[in-house]
């Protein structure tokens, strides 16, 4: 199994930490992982993205041109990464702020109203965990057990009390994700 993915959105949406939890969860399942962020000043106020690879075997390049899965959280990232999803791959997005939704017909497109749901849950900070939950629903590459362990590992001790809230958010994401049929 090898999952090559990108998570892309605004800085501040928790893109990098979502990737980190995913990678840690992979480690808990004894997989090889790489996590490679966009870096540098272009991040400033603009977009942030991270490439995550989870694999059973040694991983070659941490930087990719094509992805099995793209999680897309703003319009700029949609413009940049929709075309980079491998045929047959997955594109998961939050429609909030997306003016031009994806149009490809050779990939599987899912949408999750995570912004809305996080506001409903009264905590915009769990936004990324809702997205993460919906991703795992669509691509069940890791056991939820190990994801919980990964979460614990990637959060500093003092935030461990927030784990249940995060798990709830993930559950929410599993529930609200829906497939989109491009016509």
């Amino acid at each position, binding site marked *: 199994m090898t999952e090559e993915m990108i998570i892309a959105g605004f800085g501040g949406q928790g893109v990098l930490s979502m990737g980190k939890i995913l990678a840690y969860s992979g480690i808990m399942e004894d997989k090889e992982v790489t996590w490679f962020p966009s870096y540098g000043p272009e991040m400033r*106020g603009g977009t942030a993205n991270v490439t995550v690879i989870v694999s059973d075997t040694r991983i070659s390049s941490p930087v990719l041109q094509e992805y099995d899965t793209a999680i897309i959280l703003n319009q700029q990232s949609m413009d940049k990464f929709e075309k980079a999803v491998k045929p047959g791959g997955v594109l998961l997005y939050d429609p909030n*702020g997306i003016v031009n939704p994806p149009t490809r017909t050779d990939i599987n497109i899912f949408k999750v109203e995570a912004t809305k749901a996080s506001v409903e849950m009264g905590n915009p900070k769990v936004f990324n965990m809702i997205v993460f939950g919906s991703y795992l629903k669509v691509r069940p590459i890791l056991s939820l057990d190990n994801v919980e362990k990964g979460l614990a590992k990637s959060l500093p001790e003092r935030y461990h009390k927030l784990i249940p809230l995060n798990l709830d958010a993930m559950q929410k994401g599993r529930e609200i994700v829906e497939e989109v049929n491009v016509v």
Partner: protein
Amino acid sequence: MAKVIGAVVVDKEACKGCSVCVEACPHDVLALHLEVNSKGYHYSYMQNPEACVGCANCGVVCPDTCITVYRAKAS
């Protein structure tokens, strides 16, 4: 003395929603909009247009020079 009235035009797409103009306006004319622009910023707009005196403080402090200011004598 003729009353001076003003108005500003905010370049909505250029605005980064920093709120510096909001703070700088002596007459509480400006506010950030609930909506976001295409870059995801809550942009500045005239919430109380009638209060504007065209002092240009907002324009002067805006780091992205998004604000054009007009002033006229009230007729």
